[in-house]
């Protein structure tokens, strides 16, 4: 029988190896100018290069899809914050019932597959508002919904950690209206949560495939899937860079969380 500590360590090692092997393999495939069938222990340090990234960047298709993805991330993050902070703050203050209702609907994207969401969305708006479907930014509401399970929880935690009622009452008694109260009193006091929600929204958008694919929008993940055939090294290289960006966003988020808790 293994002791708890040993078990803990072995699980950690197994999981790390499970994730590390593909990452290492991807890295070597993307950044070593060695034919893939010849990759072995003997040439671990040979012919490393970052050229595949440059090659990918040179592709105008990449640039347009990257710009679209960045635009979508920012739009999604902004809309998420604009919608969630006031709505959830009001629900906290006014109605525990509405708060529970929001909580339940926020996890629905886990339950309802993205494909159902898109089919419904497209079916409803193709006839009535075709522009909405045609414009890539029409996806933003869907992306906000997809990110909701993560962003909602983060904002919820932020709001629960402050004395919301007293702060709001104090602000109102000093003459501030709702808008001013939400954005100059509540928001700064949950800025850690807002930053985390923003990063999570960006991460979700940068990795979202189903919706973009079904609506035929050329986002970064779609480009990467397509480029795997054309320029597999470049696709993997950019994929790794994206992973690194997401990982560091989450790292920054943790840092913010720790600082704002002090």
């Amino acid at each position, binding site marked *: 029988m293994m002791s708890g500590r040993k078990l803990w360590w072995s699980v950690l090692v197994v999981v790390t190896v499970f994730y590390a092997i593909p990452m290492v393999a991807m890295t070597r495939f993307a950044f070593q100018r060695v034919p893939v069938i010849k990759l072995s222990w003997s040439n671990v340090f040979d012919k490393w290069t970052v050229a595949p990234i440059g090659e990918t960047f040179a592709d105008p298709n990449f640039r347009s899809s990257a710009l679209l993805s960045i635009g979508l991330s920012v739009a999604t993050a902004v809309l998420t914050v604009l919608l969630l902070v006031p709505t959830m703050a009001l629900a906290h203050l006014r109605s525990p019932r509405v708060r529970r209702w929001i909580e339940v609907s926020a996890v629905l994207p886990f339950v309802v597959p993205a494909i159902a969401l898109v089919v419904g969305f497209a079916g409803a708006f193709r006839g009535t508002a075709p522009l909405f479907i045609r414009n890539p930014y029409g996806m933003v509401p869907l992306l906000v919904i997809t990110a909701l399970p993560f962003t909602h929880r983060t904002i919820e935690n932020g709001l629960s950690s402050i004395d919301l009622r*007293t702060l709001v009452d104090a602000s109102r008694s*000093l*003459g*501030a209206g709702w808008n001013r109260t939400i954005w100059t009193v509540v928001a700064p006091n949950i800025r850690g949560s807002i930053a985390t929600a923003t990063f999570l929204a960006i991460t979700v958008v940068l990795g979202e495939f189903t919706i973009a694919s079904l609506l035929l929008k050329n986002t970064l993940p779609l480009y990467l899937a397509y480029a795997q055939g054309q320029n597999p090294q470049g696709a993997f290289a950019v994929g790794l860079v994206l992973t690194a960006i997401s990982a560091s966003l989450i790292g920054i988020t943790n840092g913010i969380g720790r600082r704002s808790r002090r």
Partner: protein
Amino acid sequence: MNRSLAFLSVTKSFGKTLALDHFSVEVAEGELVSLLGPSGCGKSTALRVAAGFENPDSGDVMVGESSVLGSPANERGMGLVFQNYSLFPHLNVRENLEFGLRVRRSSAAVRRARVTELLELVRLSGLDDRLPHQLSGGQQQRVALARALAVEPRVLLLDEPLSALDATVRVEVRDEIRRIQRGSGIATLFVTHDQDEALAISDRVCVMRSRRVEQVGTPRAVYRYPATPFVARFVGRVNDLAVVVRGVGIVALRGSTSGFPVPQSGPSSGDARLLLRPEDVRVVGLSDDALARGRVEAVHFGGATTSVDVLLTPSNQTVRSTDATRNVRCEVGEEVGVVFDTERALLTREP
């Protein structure tokens, strides 16, 4: 411009729970009125109704001559200080004080002058750049008071502002609030469950019990002439003695036969309770004309406020006296006599 604040028969319920029942009280210009009562009596609800955080079901709230019920909280011009520390944690002292002025679009020069003046008023000059968490509890509440005063409110509402503070700081901030309130002449409503606080700070005290006003009067009047047994018991300390009514205006301690006179109001027969302030109980020597006898059970030495507990025989009840005459030896175990000064006593059936 200072104004009076008046509640006119305000009723408020949350769902099926009644929180205020035809509540009426008036705070005159420059006056400080305490709402005093046990928790759940509706005193905080009254304040929240005045502030505009809750809407009453019926009744009216007036400031000066006009009703404020039509205006939202942010347009009522009421200064509030809360029980919980309510300073904006992300703003420093100066920015907290400036908040209301910024909302009113005061110029930078006006804001600067006002902040300096307010910090002087609450004796915290030089702490402009501190963040709230760098201040002590007492300092935070003083800044909160200054912040409420910054916008020159028509009425000041204080919701148990001292209850989160240590005993010594509490007295200090209490006196500070009183000094500033006197100086500014703002009608002030002070919610508290602490009777010492209410008696010390108020022009008038409004004692509340289960959503209604029980008595309104000066601290002295409420203490000396409680209108109801509840007020007598809740405000200040009271000896709550079991007695048997022998006839109109005559009672005897339960288990004793010697009757003594009491005010003629109240029940005229049967068991009752006699409520008597400790200063109306005098400890005398055995040779004196004692109403009852007993043995000293405990002496609580407090300098000027020394009190003595006497276990009465044969009725087996303890009375407290703060009027142990100096010529009587009051030591634990000593046999003494007791005299009641029943002029202001209350006789009631209410247990």
